[in-house]
């Protein structure tokens, strides 16, 4: 999947197709255009980052795809279905900036929750939770409670939970935003490996240019007021090696293609208005 840039001719149904999506929030008499006529297509298995200044509507777009909010106009399709149908069919897994683990459940029970709600039996839940905790490297912590884990570990549990039902689409809203740089880079490498293993499409909201460039097949750059897509920057890195270890990932972060992508994204963010506020410098 690493080279599947804008796979417009993919045989499978696209993971996400947004057509003319607009979201207007009403605050009394004031209207806030969070999103204005956004068109976006995310192919199956593609890793797409949404980046832009605060208030550009990137989180809003993610919430619309997740059916946590409804567009004012325009249409959205998730694997050819409406977002509501996709949500009820559990087509996607989601993770936020906060891990959002239930404090009274153990790590294992947290990961099992979506499975229990989907009616998976006890044995099946156990087996799947074991797999997932192994995948995120937390097998030894399965009986701990969330308050006994570090922020990074909690976030890994949240990712395992999002992957519980093997979704073909992962929605992530700044999942590493609250973590320190070391943990962040470590989890980025792990996420790349997991995305490759599960062949899931990912829509990833972030503030960080290097993060977007490192992870994504395509970085979608948005502008604020009204929120719209300014441009999309394809990134070609050989990410297959990123999961091999920290050295391989570091090498990738030192590759000319990576710096080139970072520069292009930054340029795109500044382009037009020169007001790329709220974006982290690399």
């Amino acid at each position, binding site marked *: 999947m690493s080279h599947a840039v804008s796979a417009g001719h993919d045989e499978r149904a696209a993971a996400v197709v947004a057509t003319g999506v607009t979201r207007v929030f009403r605050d009394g008499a004031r209207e806030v255009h969070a999103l204005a006529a956004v068109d976006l297509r995310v192919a199956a298995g593609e890793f797409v980052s949404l980046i832009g200044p605060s208030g550009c509507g990137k989180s809003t777009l993610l919430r619309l795809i997740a059916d946590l909010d409804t567009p004012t106009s325009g249409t959205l399709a998730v694997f050819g279905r409406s977002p509501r149908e996709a949500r009820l069919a559990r087509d996607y897994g989601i993770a936020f900036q906060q891990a*959002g683990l239930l404090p009274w459940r153990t790590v294992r029970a947290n990961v099992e929750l979506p499975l229990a709600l989907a009616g998976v039996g006890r044995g099946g839940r156990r087996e799947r939770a074991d797999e997932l905790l192994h995948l995120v490297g937390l097998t030894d912590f399965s009986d701990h*409670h969330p308050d006994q884990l570090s922020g990074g570990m909690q976030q890994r549990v949240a990712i395992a939970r999002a992957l519980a039902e093997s979704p073909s689409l992962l929605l992530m809203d700044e999942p590493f935003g609250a973590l320190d740089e070391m943990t962040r880079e470590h989890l980025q490498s792990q996420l790349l490996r997991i995305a490759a293993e599960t062949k899931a499409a990912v829509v990833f909201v972030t503030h960080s240019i290097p993060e977007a460039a490192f992870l994504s097949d395509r970085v979608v750059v948005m502008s604020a007021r009204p929120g719209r897509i300014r441009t999309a920057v394809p990134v070609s890195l050989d990410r297959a090696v990123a999961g091999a270890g920290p050295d391989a990932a570091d090498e990738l972060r030192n590759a000319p293609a990576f710096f080139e992508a970072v520069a292009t994204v930054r340029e795109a963010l500044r382009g037009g208005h020169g007001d790329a506020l709220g974006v982290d410098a690399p």
Partner: protein
Amino acid sequence: MRRVVAALLSLVAVASLWELYTLVGPDDGWSLGDTRLLPRTSDLAMPHTWDMVTRLFEPVSGGTGAQPLWLAVLRAGRLSFGIALAGWGIGVVVGALLAIAMQRVRIVESAVLPLVVLSQTVPLIALAPLVRSWGAQLELGSFEWEPWMSVAVIASYLAFFPVAVGMLRGIQSPDTIHVELMRSYGAGWWATLTRLRLPAAVPHLLPALRLAAANAVIGTVVAEVSTGLPGGLGRMILEFANFAASDPPKPWAPIFGGVLLGLVAAGLVALLGRSSRRFRRAEATA
């Protein structure tokens, strides 16, 4: 262990204060104009604590074969406890159902919550005869309304309030992120209630249950007095008050019984709290 010692010490402190006042306080109390602010210190008004205790081990009355006072108090307490427990149970169920209804439908919350608050301003004494007469008119096949049920209903009237308010706060307490995660799992209202809202409500519910237990005990004793139900602590307080002049320590016995009842009730709720410890873990913070 330390807490037990502290509790005993505070008991001794209260008794000492009592005795100290009877020793040094003015015989006729202390009045400001016609209002007496401090009580008389006579043995009639303030019997010695040791007299109250020894009185417990003497027979209730001069009659032959009369049981000791402490046993009579315990027996009355047992009846009152059973009624209070029933009242507490009814109050908890009604309060919880009200809270769930209020959480489920916004309109219900804005319509019912003021009524719930208003309900507690109606004096219990005014309510007791009403409940008793309604109960007496109730006929459901072979089911017969017994006087103690009126007392339990009145007790539940006091007990449901803290449960309704605490439970509502509790089931409204989950963060948006948790509610949205449940939504993303396609969980419906019921699944969200049982897996998220109810567990999250436990820390709010425990103090509410403790308040409800105390309220149920008070409600029971007061309702026993005002409906005239014989056999319980309420009636005993009323009867023994007649002995205030001839046998001053005696009226204190059922009051101690009431205190004991409250302690047992609070203890049972604390036990309930122990078994639900895992729901009170600090919220996970990143």
